[in-house]
């Protein structure tokens, strides 16, 4: 399992454009059948724009099952709950 430190991968966790950087990384992991440990520092706030172009786009293209098989989350419980909250909201509105 490979660890990605999110704050080292992107310039910010607020914008659409930086979300795409994470998306590209996740997409590569799927192609290479690699399991990633996504480390989210306690100081990072993840905006919906950032999550739309990273996790939301990934869910559009690969679905929740592939996301679960591609990422494990490392961080505080508060951060994990915020991350999961986005996925749940996304699923409630956009999953088929």
């Amino acid at each position: 399992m490979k660890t990605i430190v999110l704050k080292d991968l992107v310039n910010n966790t607020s914008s659409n454009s930086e979300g795409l950087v994470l998306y590209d990384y996740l997409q590569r992991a799927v192609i290479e059948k690699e399991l990633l440990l996504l480390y989210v520092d306690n100081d990072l706030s993840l905006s919906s724009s950032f999550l739309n172009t990273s996790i939301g786009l990934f869910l559009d293209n690969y679905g929740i099952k592939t996301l679960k098989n591609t990422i494990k989350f490392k961080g505080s419980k508060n951060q994990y709950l915020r991350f999961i909250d986005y996925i749940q909201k996304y699923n409630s509105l956009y999953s088929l």
Partner: protein
Amino acid sequence: MIYSYSLYAKKYFERFANNKDLISLSANLDEVFNNVFDHAQSPITGYIITQYYPKNNKLSFSICDFGIGIPSSINNKNIENNFPIMDDWKSIIKSLEKGFSVNSTPRNRGFGLNNIIEFTESSNGKLTIISNNGIVEKSANSLYKAGKTEYEFKGTLIKVEVDLNTFQNKNEHEEIFDL
């Protein structure tokens, strides 16, 4: 860089916050910034002020732009789709619905302003939005108050007031979670 503001604001106000987790503050500042960038078409980026009130441990932030306004943004889309034009205050309330977006950029999903309303609800706060001729106020656990302004304001002013006592405590302990 505007996104630095949210991080510095979080760090600055942590000194008053008694070990509260202020990530949701910086995340919601970013939500409002992104709303301006994506939809406002403002000739200036925007103005922001954040204020802490020690007496009641409340914090507020206000963000203002001089763009086309939420009602015009929504009604332009309504005209494009042959939908009826909405009153300004009704379009502001519409913009707060989860999943509603005029899709100014392809990746808008309608989470941003809904996150703001959830934030004010969960933190016993109050949201005020004035945009063009509409005004909407929403206090936690109360109904919307909305109507037409008696003045013309070209742009959008969003004010969020929250009670820091309701914020979660910081949790530094890290774990590994399955999704």
